[in-house]
């Protein structure tokens, strides 16, 4: 052990200049960020400094590794150690680990100044809320995980290189060069297949596959040279082995990069628990995210899906699918909230970007223990000039152009409070604060204000006067309510399971106005853009659901019987006044059966054979709030039997496959 420590230390000491160089390069990255800040490039300073330090780290690791291996192992200096009382394992282990430590340090040290001096500039890189990571695969897919994996892969490559040098006497400088080029190709592979590239250049993946094929062919040619020529010409044989090995490594790393990009392109496994969020007015861009399934509460990435071309891009790693991302009414911007962690604690980060991905502005909140990102929400005003941003019991109205705060309010700071809201107009905000009663918690379920709501306080906030007024209370036990956008009403589902009711309450006072349904086995409503209320319900003892349409005032307009032995739920409003329904078997999930298109005018409901709705449900509480921005759907996103996301054109009935998702999880309920 004494010998090992001495050899290890010697290897490290030999390259002490590398450590200083690593730290110095990190300081250069900090300086770069500082200069950018100084000259007003606030929005790119952090990212530039972090990216630069990561690039320096990666390059440093590659360069030092490429130097360590040939210099150490080709120079025949092993005898110096072997002529001393050091065991063989200590020599090899000391030299290996010493060299690896230097390479690893070169990968990490340039990041240290940015992390320590740059006030968490690397948060994009390192700070991922562990609560949102569900397995080793998720960790590997974080930027830090990917970087760490790349560095470890590099070390493994060097280890293989050393072993091969020892066994076959292959010139290690070839291998070092191979490693360098493989690293470059790895990054190129990711870039060529990543979503932003393929979104705009769909042919990139074919170019990539072509290059991959060429490289693989190179490996075969190298092997051929080895076999045919190697017996007569040792030098040529060594070269052939080097080239062959290098080409094989290229192929392996290219495949690795492609695998990563493949996952990115096709979507991670969490998309199987899909929630369709908002969409742009032209129907092209959709917000997708994970959702809660049964007893599992998931904080999952938010994606922006291009329903026209099929590509998608991740907006954030953390979301809950409960309103933390919104597309502006003009369809140009997307605002989203995600959680960030620093040494000080939890922050929220509100970002506004163009749909093409350019950052417009961002606001990092204070580290004040905001540890439940699911309690944040963003909503644009009807004309998109303002943004309502809610965290816990507080809220702000922001200027959507630059993110500046126009007004703020505080309903409360209680952990048992859940605030949601919507703009009634550009100057008026309607707010709903759920108050949790922890005694209502059901065994095996998490306790949240959403699930264990005792009552809901109704608030109104006037932006110009900055006046917050509590207007009323809903005090019945229920889970869901749906504001009616055209009037001051709220649709409330009440009652226990198998005895559901549906009522229309006054949106200001919370007082019940009209009783719509009662004693139903199940009830699922949907409020349409014109204020009409649609619901599927089944009376006790009946064999089929009925689709009912109510006026905004609560009078029954139409009843449409639905096919028997299936259960239904309204999902969305379609062009032509039609309603999209999801169906499922009595004991199954609502997403397991064919989707249906119901036509209230003709009192019919026709199945869309082979296509089903996703597992999520349309969200409540004002997520779809104003007729101005509510484009009626010409096409919807459904899933086919292969779990492929398909754009279904309602009028032409054409199907356009977009993205294939992983098979649905067997856990949870739909």
């Amino acid at each position, binding site marked *: 052990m004494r010998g090992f420590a*001495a050899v290890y230390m010697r290897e490290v000491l030999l390259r002490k200049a590398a450590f200083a160089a690593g730290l110095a390069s990190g300081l250069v990255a900090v300086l770069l960020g500082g200069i950018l800040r100084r000259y007003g490039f606030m929005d790119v300073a952090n990212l530039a400094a972090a990216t630069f330090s990561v690039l320096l780290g990666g390059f440093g690791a590659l360069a030092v590794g490429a130097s360590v291996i040939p210099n150490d192992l080709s120079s025949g200096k092993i005898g110096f150690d072997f002529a001393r009382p*050091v065991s063989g394992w200590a020599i090899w282990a000391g030299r290996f680990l010493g060299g690896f430590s230097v390479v690893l340090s070169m990968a990490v040290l340039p990041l240290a100044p940015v992390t320590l001096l740059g006030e968490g500039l690397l948060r994009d890189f390192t700070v991922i809320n562990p609560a949102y990571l569900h397995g080793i695969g998720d960790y590997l897919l974080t930027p830090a995980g990917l970087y760490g994996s790349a560095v470890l892969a590099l070390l493994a490559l060097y280890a293989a290189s050393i072993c091969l040098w020892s066994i076959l006497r292959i010139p290690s400088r070839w291998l070092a060069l191979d490693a360098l080029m493989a690293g470059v190709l790895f990054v190129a592979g990711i870039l060529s297949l990543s979503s932003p590239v393929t979104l705009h250049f769909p042919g990139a993946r074919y170019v990539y596959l072509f290059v991959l094929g060429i490289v693989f062919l190179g490996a075969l040619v190298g092997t051929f040279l080895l076999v045919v020529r190697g017996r007569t010409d040792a030098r040529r044989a060594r070269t052939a082995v080097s080239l062959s090995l290098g080409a094989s490594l290229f192929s392996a790393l290219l495949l690795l990069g492609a695998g990563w990009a493949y996952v990115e392109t096709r979507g991670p496994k969490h998309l199987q628990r899909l929630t369709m969020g908002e969409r742009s007015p032209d129907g092209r861009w959709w917000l997708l995210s994970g959702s809660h399934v049964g007893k599992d509460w998931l904080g999952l990435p938010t994606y922006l899906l291009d329903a026209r071309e099929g590509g998608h891009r991740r907006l954030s790693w953390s979301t809950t699918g409960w309103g933390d991302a919104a597309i502006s009414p003009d369809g140009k911007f997307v605002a989203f909230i995600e959680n960030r962690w620093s040494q000080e604690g939890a922050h929220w980060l509100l970002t506004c970007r163009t749909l093409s991905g350019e950052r417009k502005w961002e606001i990092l909140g204070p580290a004040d223990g905001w540890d439940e990102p699911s309690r944040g929400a963003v909503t644009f005003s009807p004309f998109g000039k303002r943004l309502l941003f809610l965290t816990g019991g507080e809220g702000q109205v922001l200027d959507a152009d630059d993110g500046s705060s126009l007004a703020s309010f505080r309903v409360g700071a209680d952990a048992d409070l859940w605030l949601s809201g919507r703009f009634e107009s550009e100057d008026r905000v309607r707010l709903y604060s759920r108050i949790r009663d922890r005694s209502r918690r059901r065994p095996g379920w998490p306790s949240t204000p959403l699930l264990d709501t005792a009552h809901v306080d109704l608030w109104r906030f006037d932006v110009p006067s900055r006046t917050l007024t509590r207007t009323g209370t809903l005090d019945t036990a229920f889970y869901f309510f749906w504001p009616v956008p055209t009037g001051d009403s709220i649709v409330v589902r009440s009652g226990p399971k198998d005895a559901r009711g549906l009522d229309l309450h006054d949106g200001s006072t919370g007082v019940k106005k009209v009783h719509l349904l009662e004693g139903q086995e199940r009830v699922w409503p949907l409020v349409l853009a014109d204020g009409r209320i649609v619901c599927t319900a089944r009376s006790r003892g009946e064999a089929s659901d009925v689709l009912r349409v109510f006026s905004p005032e609560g009078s029954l307009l139409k009843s449409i019987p639905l096919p028997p032995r299936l259960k239904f739920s309204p999902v969305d409003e379609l062009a032509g006044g039609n309603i999209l329904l999801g169906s499922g078997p009595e004991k199954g999930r609502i997403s397991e059966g064919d989707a249906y298109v119901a036509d209230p005018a003709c009192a019919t409901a026709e199945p869309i054979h082979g296509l089903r709705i996703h597992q999520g449900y349309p969200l409540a509480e004002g997520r779809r709030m104003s007729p101005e921005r509510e484009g009626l759907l010409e096409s919807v996103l459904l899933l086919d039997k292969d779990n492929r996301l398909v754009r279904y054109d309602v009028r032409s009935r054409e199907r356009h496959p977009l993205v294939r998702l992983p098979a649905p999880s067997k856990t949870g309920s739909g």
Partner: protein
Amino acid sequence: MTEAASAENALELRGVTVRYGKAVAAKGVSLSVPAGEVTALLGRNGAGKTSLIRVLLGMRKAQEGEALLWGKDAWKHRHELLERVGVVPETPDAPEDLSVRDLLAFCSRLYRTWDGKGAEDRLERFGVPLGVPFGSLSKGQKGHAMLALALAHRPDLLVLDDPTLGLDAVARKAFFEELVADLADRGAAVFLSSHDLSGVESIADRVAFLREGRLLLDEPLEGLKARFRRLSFRREKEAGEAALRPLEPVFVRRTAFGEESVVAAYEETAFHGFASSPGVAAAEASEMSLEEIFIALTGEEGGAP
């Protein structure tokens, strides 16, 4: 040889054969180095000296035979035995980027005993700067630095593989003087391979000659020098041949002034018998240096004594 006898020898090779593929570097070599003696292993380039040294340092396993250090197998107990061995290799092979001071620090961690001050004093005497990277030192300084590293832990056996290769005459002299001074202090055993035969002659107690991997001789230097003489004489045809034979001539050759012979078993009475033989005139015997003996035995005319 018994275990006890082996243990008295600092170093012992028993029938060691080393091959590199089909090439034989050493064939059945057996020799021993008693504790406290300086033994020089001499041979021409490629004679197998370095191969034998690598075997006795446990850096290479012999195909046949065994190498023992203080009676223990050098291959099996290399780590333990090298605690008592100081090594100066043929080519200074210390990491070139490390300074001499760092090298001393590194080596000090490998040995239980370490005379750091002694090593630094020795380097100061040689004029070797401590803060300079090893790779930047001159050849002589490198040689002295390697010797200082080899002696700092006060080894019981010093193995020197042609340590003065490439050094100038002054540096060679200083190297061997330092070695003699250290040996005078402690009386450690030395196993030395060198082409600097005058330097070897000044310190060696015992010499062994290798030729093409085979051991020609292994005996005390004094005895070797006592039995080898260079004879010059004139004679008629092959006169005195019978009287010359007991002197064991290595070779006899004609010169411009008569004939010359190197004999391997010089003895005063036998020489006078030869000198007074009929037909032999002007016979003279002169002492030979180690270098002359080496050339006589391993050169073109050489052969087994």
